[in-house]
């Protein structure tokens, strides 16, 4: 999963009413150098120039009066047919009665949503602001991506101009193939796909095989918010699309892991249920995966655009190790790198002159989150543990390497566990009100072949190996002196009297044993109003998917390849992406919206 969490915790949005900004219409010149009304100029006559003299000045040049602009001294003038604005301005410049002359410039209202945290969404509108929102998180220091924060004004998706033409992308269904989506979130509920009676929860869950794709990680909800958090609702944040149709397809578990089988089922579901864009902010390295590739090809046949992440290893995907799905080559596949707040390539972002296509904002990205994360609890591992043994040895407290651990045998790493033993250690914890409870373990284990180190939990407490839930077991391993980390979903054991335990069982053999030197619990409580600021190519990908949905909704006849081409060719050229992507361009929503393909299929017949 291509995510770099920069803050583990919850972004609590405590927003005073006074901070709910009103809509922000503004006037801006359409271009430097200016677009102007053809056939017109504005002329400012010297004070005291009579109306008759003004009229004569105009008529002598073949011009006519359109309007006198109040008492400003300015006169709006219509030129004679065929005369350019430049020529007309030159004609007035040597007239002593004329103080100034200029084009009648064109302006337009730009459009900004009234969501209270829009000002922190630099990817949508970069004013050179410093991103600070996650500092409101409780419990510690936020670890922001510190490069280019603040960044450079104007280095963004160029959305405000695009929003002047379209904010409703709901005509193009976007499937978020990810860890699910919190479809009850206050900024997402109104923009979820309507799956009818068959899919009442707006998608499908291929992790658990049911119709509830609720996000138990946060990643998918963050992605969905970037694409289509309800905009201009005076709540939270805005998506690239203010109105969207988001299909939730859960293929990653609460730990953010999914298999080829789950992913291709997710892609197939999205294709079969009308998605026009699939967002896949996920990836893995190494080998070509033919089943995965076939699913992308099926999406191509169904005219579905697939937008994927470049990866977060800071490496060249064209090098020795490819990153999939980015390195697939189907024409409906668009791979996205992450840009920082000054449109430099983010330090963690993968790149590839033949595999990565465009860049988009991917650092310090504020978006929706699935719920409140309970700050991790870490056990001291030096008290409160109960134990049992069938051979007189068993678990004990120890200090291998100077760290507090529970160990078996007691002299670990010297000696070894007993033969034909069953040694257990367990402790009672309390956890409630959570939707996800995760156990993080740091351990070393040397276990002989056929012997086992096991972990278990029990909701009812006591010895978890007596009727509890077996979480995992290993055999024939030798990790000492290295420590191995493991995250396990123990939600089924959640209770106020739950227990967690470890066990070594052996036959006629022995080995060095085991040490558990880190044990933490962290929880997630799904809610409807959480937000988070994180970074990754996972965040750049939905920014691009949102723009893709916008373009397909604006141009309903567009194909997936039309959309991809408009994004690629109408992007903003960046030095930072030159030679590192296929286009060298950053995504530019307005330019892509205005892009026109060269006509094709020209035929000529002579009669």
């Amino acid at each position, binding site marked *: 999963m291509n995510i770099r969490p920069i803050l583990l915790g919850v972004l609590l949005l405590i927003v005073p009413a006074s901070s709910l900004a009103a809509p922000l219409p503004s006037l801006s010149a359409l271009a430097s150098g200016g677009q102007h009304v053809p056939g017109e100029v504005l002329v400012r006559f010297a004070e005291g120039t009579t109306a008759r003299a003004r009229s004569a000045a105009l008529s002598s040049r073949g011009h006519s009066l359109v309007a006198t602009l109040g008492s400003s001294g300015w006169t709006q003038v219509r030129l004679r047919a065929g005369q350019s604005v430049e020529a007309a301005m030159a004609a007035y410049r040597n007239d002593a009665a004329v103080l100034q002359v200029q084009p009648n410039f064109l302006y337009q209202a730009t459009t900004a949503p009234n969501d209270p945290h829009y000002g922190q969404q630099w990817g949508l509108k970069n004013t050179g602001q410093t991103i600070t929102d996650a500092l409101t998180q409780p419990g510690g220091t936020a670890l922001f991506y510190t490069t280019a924060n603040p960044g450079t004004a104007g280095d963004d998706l160029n959305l405000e101009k695009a929003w002047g033409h379209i904010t409703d992308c709901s005509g193009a269904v976007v499937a978020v193939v990810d860890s699910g989506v919190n479809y009850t979130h206050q900024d997402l509920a109104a923009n979820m796909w309507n799956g009818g009676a068959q899919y009442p929860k707006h998608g499908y869950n291929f992790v658990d095989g049911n119709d509830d794709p609720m996000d138990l990680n946060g990643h998918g909800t963050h992605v969905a918010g970037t694409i289509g958090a309800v905009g201009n609702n005076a709540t939270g944040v805005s998506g690239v699309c203010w109105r969207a149709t988001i299909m939730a397809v859960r293929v990653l578990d609460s730990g953010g892991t999914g298999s080829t089988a789950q992913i291709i089922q997710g892609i197939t579901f999205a294709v079969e249920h009308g998605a026009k864009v699939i967002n896949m902010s996920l990836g893995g390295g190494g080998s070509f995966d033919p089943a995965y590739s076939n699913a992308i090809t099926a999406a191509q046949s169904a005219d579905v655009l697939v937008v994927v992440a470049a990866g977060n290893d800071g490496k060249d995907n064209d090098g020795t190790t490819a990153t999939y799905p980015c390195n697939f080559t189907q024409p409906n596949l668009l791979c996205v790198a992450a840009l920082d707040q000054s449109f430099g390539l983010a330090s963690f972002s993968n790149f590839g002159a033949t595999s990565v296509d465009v860049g988009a904002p991917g650092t310090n990205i504020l978006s929706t989150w699935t719920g409140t994360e309970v700050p991790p609890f870490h056990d001291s591992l030096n008290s409160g543990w109960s134990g049992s043994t069938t051979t007189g040895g068993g678990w004990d407290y120890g200090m291998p390497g100077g760290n507090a651990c529970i160990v078996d045998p007691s002299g670990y790493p010297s000696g070894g566990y007993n033969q034909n033993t069953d040694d257990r250690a367990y402790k009672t914890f309390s956890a409630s009100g959570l939707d996800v409870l995760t156990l993080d373990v740091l351990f070393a284990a040397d276990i002989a072949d056929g012997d086992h180190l096991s972990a278990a939990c029990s909701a009812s407490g006591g010895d978890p190996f007596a009727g509890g839930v077996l979480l995992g077991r290993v055999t024939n391993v030798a990790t000492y002196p290295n420590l191995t980390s493991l995250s396990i979903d123990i939600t089924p054991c959640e209770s106020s009297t739950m227990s967690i335990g470890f066990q070594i069982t052996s036959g006629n053999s022995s080995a060095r044993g085991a040490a558990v030197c880190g044990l933490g619990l962290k929880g997630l409580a799904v809610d409807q109003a959480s937000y988070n600021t994180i970074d990754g190519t996972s965040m750049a990908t939905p920014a691009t998917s949102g723009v893709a949905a916008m373009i397909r909704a604006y141009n309903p006849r567009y194909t997936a390849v039309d959309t991809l081409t408009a994004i690629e060719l109408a992007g903003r050229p960046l030095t930072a992406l030159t030679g590192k992507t296929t286009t060298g361009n950053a995504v530019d929503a307005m330019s892509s919206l205005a892009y026109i393909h060269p006509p094709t*299929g*020209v035929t000529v017949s002579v009669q």
Partner: protein
Amino acid sequence: MHGRGRTLAVLVLVLSLGTGCGGGGGNRGGSCSNSCTSSGATQCSGLQIQTCGTDSSGCLAWSAATACPGTLSCNQSRNACTDHQVTISWAANREAGVNSAGGGYKVAISAQPVIDVPYASGATTPTTTIAHLPSGSYSVTVKAYAALDAQGGTSGTSSAASQSVPITVP
């Protein structure tokens, strides 16, 4: 118009009576065998043209074939020196802006005025236009355009040109 036509008919009749010849094609025993029927009429001979006129015998006959003036050539269906009708077609663009008010296509034929094919009504802008071209070799390209520009304004945007298609008008 009708009155002048009758006058010309009478004049031809008077001339015929004056020469004692039926006109054109050779005087055989005082009667003409005309190879054409109306003085001034034209017909094609390949890309060249012939004109009906009075020959040395006083009869109506086709002149020797002569080249058409300038770059024109003889149009078989019209029996006259004309340019040629050229039909240019292309695939419809899928941009909404091309197929709505302010959108359309511009057809460029080398050394000829650009032909504007604007959106008029309905779902799509026309994708065919007709030009009349004298003989020669040409290249044809098509651009699509829309009112929306890349700055979000309405000053218009044009596509790059299509691939150039060469044509030869005989």
